[in-house]
C-alpha cells in the first residue's frame, strides 16, 4: 500500500520520529472536519457547538430537542454553504496539485490551461441570455471543456503536446476567453444582468443550495477518484515526457486523462460558485511543505487542506463585514502575499 508504505519518510527524506507522520496526517485529516464544524456555529446568528451537534443529529433523523431557528440556520443555510466550500476547496487544490505535477512546474494553477476563463465565459453568456441556474452550470461546464479542446488542438505538434506548447496554448486560450467575457459584460444590461455577471465572476458561496452541493459533489467525486487513482502516474509524468515514455508509460492518454479530470473539477466549481483563484496554486505549496513532493501523499493532503482553507476564507467573506466580501477577491488578497512568502521561503532549497 503506497500511503502507509511511504509514511515513515518525511518531506525532507530524512528519518523522523515514529509519531510524527501519524500526528501530521491526523492533523491534516482533522483540519477540514474541525473547521467545518466550527464554521456551522459562526455567523450573524452565532450557534454554540453543542447546539450545532444537536442540530446535525436532528438533521440525521435522531429525535433531539433543538430550537427551530437553530435547526434552520445550521441545516438549511450554513450546512450546504460549508459543504460546498469543502468540496470546491478540496477539488481546486487537488486539481492544482495534479496540474503542477503534470506540467512539471510548481507555478501552474488551474487557470493556466485556460479552463477557468472558458468556464467564466460560458457562465457569463448564460447569465446574459437569462438561461437560469441550469443554463449557468451547463454553460460553465461546456465552455470549460471547450477551452480544453482548443488547448488540445493548438498544442499538437507532430501528434504530441509538449508541455511548453500546452502552457502557451493555455495562455492564448485563456486570453481569448477573457476577451469574450469582457465582451459579454460590455453587452450586458447595466441595470440588471451586468451586476449579476460581475458578482458571479468574483466568486461566492452565498447562493449555496442542496441541489448545487449535490451537483458539484457528484462531479468532484468522479474526477477526484480518477486523480487519486492516478497519483503514481503523476509522479512519473513529472519526470518529463521522454523519461515517462521510456519508463513504459503511454504519456499522451495518461496526461489527457488527468487534464480532463482536473478540468471537470475546475469547471464544476466555476459553475456553482464563480471564479475562485489562487486556492489551486497556494494550497498545493503548503501541502508540499508538510508532506513532501510525492504526489501519492501530496494529492490527499492538498485536497484535505484545500477543503479546510476554503471554508476558513469563506468564514471571513461572510462575517468580516455587514455585506459579503466576494470570495474570489478574498482568496486573491490572502493568496497573493502568501504565495509571495512561500516563493521566498522555498526558492532557496528547491521546491520542497
Amino acid at each position, binding site marked *: 500500500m*503506497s500511503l502507509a508504505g511511504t509514511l515513515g519518510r518525511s518531506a525532507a*527524506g530524512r528519518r523522523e520520529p515514529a509519531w510524527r507522520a501519524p500526528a501530521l496526517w491526523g492533523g491534516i485529516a482533522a483540519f477540514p472536519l474541525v473547521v467545518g464544524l466550527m464554521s456551522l456555529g459562526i455567523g450573524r446568528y452565532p450557534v454554540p457547538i453543542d447546539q450545532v451537534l444537536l442540530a446535525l443529529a436532528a438533521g440525521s433523523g435522531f429525535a433531539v430537542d433543538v430550537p427551530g431557528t437553530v435547526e434552520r440556520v445550521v441545516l438549511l443555510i450554513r450546512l450546504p454553504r460549508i459543504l460546498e466550500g469543502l468540496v470546491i476547496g478540496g477539488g481546486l487544490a487537488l486539481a492544482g496539485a495534479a496540474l503542477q505535477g503534470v506540467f512539471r512546474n510548481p507555478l501552474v494553477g488551474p487557470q493556466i490551461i485556460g479552463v477557468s476563463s472558458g468556464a467564466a465565459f460560458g457562465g457569463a453568456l448564460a447569465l446574459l441570455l437569462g438561461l437560469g441556474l441550469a443554463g449557468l452550470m451547463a454553460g460553465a461546464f461546456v465552455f470549460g471543456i471547450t477551452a480544453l479542446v482548443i488547448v488540445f488542438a493548438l498544442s499538437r505538434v507532430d501528434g504530441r503536446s509538449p508541455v511548453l506548447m500546452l502552457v502557451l496554448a493555455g495562455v492564448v486560450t485563456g486570453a481569448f476567453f477573457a476577451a469574450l467575457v469582457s465582451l459579454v459584460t460590455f453587452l450586458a444590461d447595466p441595470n440588471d444582468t451586468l451586476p449579476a455577471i460581475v458578482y458571479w465572476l468574483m466568486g461566492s458561496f452565498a447562493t449555496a443550495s442542496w441541489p448545487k452541493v449535490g451537483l458539484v459533489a457528484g462531479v468532484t467525486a468522479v474526477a477526484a477518484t480518477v486523480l487519486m487513482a492516478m497519483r503514481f502516474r503523476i509522479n512519473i509524468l513529472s519526470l*518529463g515526457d521522454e*523519461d515517462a515514455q521510456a*519508463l*513504459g508509460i503511454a504519456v499522451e492518454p495518461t496526461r489527457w*486523462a488527468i487534464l480532463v479530470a482536473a478540468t471537470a473539477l475546475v469547471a464544476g466549481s466555476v459553475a456553482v460558485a464563480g471564479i475562485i483563484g489562487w486556492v489551486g496554486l497556494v494550497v498545493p505549496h503548503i501541502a508540499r511543505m508538510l508532506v513532501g513532493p510525492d504526489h501519492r501523499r501530496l494529492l490527499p493532503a492538498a485536497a484535505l487542506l484545500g477543503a479546510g482553507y476554503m471554508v476558513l476564507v469563506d468564514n471571513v467573506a461572510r462575517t468580516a463585514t455587514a455585506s459579503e466580501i466576494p470570495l474570489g477577491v478574498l482568496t486573491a488578497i490572502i493568496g497573493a502575499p502568501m504565495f509571495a512568502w512561500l516563493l521566498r521561503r522555498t526558492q532557496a532549497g528547491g521546491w520542497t
Partner: protein
Amino acid sequence: MITVEGLSYHLPRDRCAVFRDLSFRVPDGAVFAILGPNGRGKTTLLKTVLGLLRPSAGRVRIDGATGYVPQGTHLPFPYSVLDIVVMGRARGIAAFRSPGKADYAAARRALDRLGFLGFADRPVTELSGGERQMVLIARAIASEAPILVLDEPTSALDFRNQDRVLGAIARIAREDRLTVLFTTHYPQHALHVADTALAMHGPADARAGPVADILSEAELTDLYGLPIRVARLDHAGRPVRTVAPVFGAAEPAGLPLVAP
C-alpha cells in the same frame, strides 16, 4: 537482440538526414558502444531505437523491454532516491495502481547492488552529478528489463566517477546477462567495457564491428578529424590501452564545430 535495418532520421521539416540507411545488430548479452562527433546523431539514434522518436525510414526490432538511462534528467521536485528508483517499475504497475512491496524490494535491491542503499531517503535534488547518474542506473536496473540503454553515462563525470559508473555497468551487465547499448564521447570507455562498437563517421557512413577494429588509430582519426593515438601502457604488469587525441594538430579544414 536488437536489429536495426535501413534506419533513417530526418529532423521535422528538414530534407537533410541526421543519419541514413543505418543497419546493425546487437546480439543478446553484447555490450555495444556508439561513438561519433557532436551532432552526428548518437542520441537521436538511441531515441529512435527506444521508440521515443519515429524514424523517417527503416525499422527497429527489439526483443524485450528496455531500461533507459537518459543524459541527465531535470527534476523539478525533490523526490527521494527510492521514489525515483521505484519509478523504474512503472511498466508493470497498472494506470490506477501504485507500486507495492515487491516493487520497493526491487528498487532497494537495485540500489544495494550499486552500493547506494544508504542514499535511499536522500532528496535527488541534493545529489552530485555522479550520484544522480548512479540513481538513474539503479532505476533502469529496477525495471529488470533485459536491455539497458544509456545515453552518455559518463559525460560530465570526473575520472573516479567515470570508473565507478563504467564498472557498475560492466558488472551488472555480466551478472544479469544484459544487452547494453550506450553512447559515449570517450573511445577508451568503449575499449574498456564494450565488445562491439558503431562509429558514426558520416550521415550515411556508420561502421560497426569488434571494438578494437572500429576504434583503431586510423578509424578514430577519421572519426573525429584529429590525429588520435592509441597507446598501450603497462600498469602493475597489466596491459592498459588508452586513447590520446593530439590536440592542435587538426587539419585546418577540419570538421565545423557543431552543437550537440
